[in-house]
């Protein structure tokens, strides 16, 4: 499909930070020849386009759309649907689009709690009754509209069908280039696959993996802030909850290389049904104690915030949390 002529490619961003674009720019600067193969239909960071421009395109006329950012605003849903209609292949690019990313942590709170914190609780706000509104009539009598903030941040696949995923926060240039090469080769893996990253967990490529003993049993889990880490040793065996064992590889273990734990930005592996569940499973499993109180202490000290640790990038992909919020359950 993609082997003939240039590939018509589109980039789009939703609730994102721009880091994915930076990564794409880095990728292209590492391999400038790509520009000759890619026909960039739109790329908001570099090329201007409007929704109307996209609407005018024939359906399925875009070969590949790379969408980053989570679905946070009402208009993201429209745009996602539009791009789906116009594109043969839609790829969730980056952690936010794939599973919600860090902004997805907002799903631990309701939209109202979030708005209230920003517009009235912070210490720099004194006008406690003011708040942005979706429809506002100006003093001139004109209505100004703001897009609605959705009650939940959603990953892209919650609103449209996603064909492939390129993981990472952001995906490294290598991951991005690997993925593009697969797309350009025309040899496409099954739908739903992850492109450009490893099929295995990060430990496989982490230089510190060899420093592990055969059995990993930990007497204490520790937070990084009060732990002196030996940079030459696996963080997990030093008691730091490093998510390398359960996180997809592909970044070459950038964080462990500077003695910081993997925080899971490459997300789940194919076998996971709930990434966070798997994280807490392996972490709890290696605690070397049979005493309930001691276990609780070890967990309290090392993992005071299991949700923030295990779902730092994937909370909106937790079907449980999503369902609870949709059902209006506690905390929603």
């Amino acid at each position, binding site marked *: 499909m993609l082997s003939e002529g240039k590939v018509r490619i589109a980039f789009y961003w939703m609730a994102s930070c721009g880091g994915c674009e930076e990564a794409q720019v880095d990728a292209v600067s590492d391999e400038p020849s790509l520009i000759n193969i890619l026909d960039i239909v739109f790329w908001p960071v570099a090329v201007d386009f409007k929704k109307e421009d996209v609407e005018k395109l024939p359906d399925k006329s875009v070969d590949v759309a790379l969408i980053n950012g989570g679905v946070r605003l009402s208009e993201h849903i429209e745009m996602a649907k539009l791009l789906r209609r116009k594109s043969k292949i839609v790829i969730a690019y980056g952690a936010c689009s794939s599973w919600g990313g860090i902004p997805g942590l907002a799903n631990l709170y309701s939209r109202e709690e979030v708005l209230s914190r920003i517009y009235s609780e912070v210490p720099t706000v004194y006008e406690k009754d003011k708040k942005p509104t979706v429809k506002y009539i100006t003093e001139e009598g004109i209505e100004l509209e703001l897009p609605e903030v959705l*009650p939940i941040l959603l990953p892209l696949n919650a609103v449209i069908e996603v064909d492939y995923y390129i993981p990472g926060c952001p995906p490294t240039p290598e991951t991005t280039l690997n993925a593009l090469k697969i797309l350009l080769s025309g040899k496409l893996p099954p739908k739903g696959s992850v492109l450009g990253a490893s099929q295995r967990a990060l430990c496989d490529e982490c230089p510190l993996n060899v420093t592990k003993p055969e059995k990993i049993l930990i007497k204490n889990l520790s937070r990084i802030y009060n732990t002196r880490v030996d940079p030459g040793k696996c963080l997990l065996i030093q008691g730091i909850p490093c998510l390398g064992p359960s996180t997809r590889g592909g970044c070459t273990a950038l964080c462990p290389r500077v003695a910081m734990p993997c925080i899971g930005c490459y997300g789940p592996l194919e076998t996971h049904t709930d990434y966070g569940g798997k994280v*807490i499973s392996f972490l709890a499993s290696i605690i070397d104690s*049979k005493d309930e109180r001691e276990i609780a202490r070890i967990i309290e000290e090392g993992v005071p915030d299991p949700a923030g640790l295990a779902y730092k990038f994937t909370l909106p992909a937790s079907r449980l*949390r999503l*369902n609870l919020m949709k059902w*209006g359950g506690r*905390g929603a």
Partner: protein
Amino acid sequence: MSEKFEPKILMFACNWCAYAAADLAGTSRMKYPPNLRIIRVMCSGRVDPQLVLEAFAKGADGVIIAGCRPGDCHYIEGNYKALRRAILLRKLLEQLGVESERFRLEWIAASDAKKLVEVTHDMVEKIRKLGPIRVVGEVGSVE
């Protein structure tokens, strides 16, 4: 909801203890509420928190992992692994908005059919008070 709420409770039962205790409850013709569904595993240590999260996501009102009493594990110490995971899982569930009463780890010996019956009764009662995990409420305009 005029009809009385009947919680649906899922139990992951160790083949050697809790599952056998449920068998014993049957052969002893004990009676307990019909809200429990048992999934048999060989050891409570097999229960991956992913399974529990999936059960709640699917709408289980309560989930029980039932294993051998400490020191009695058929596989030496699988139940301790279940214990470690349960402690962390309970913390996680609370953050996700699942009340701690909805998730339990119970030690139920093969001979302790009585405990299985009591646990079921107690769980059903507590969750009935709590209400269904799906509170019918405002659904955000996300779909």
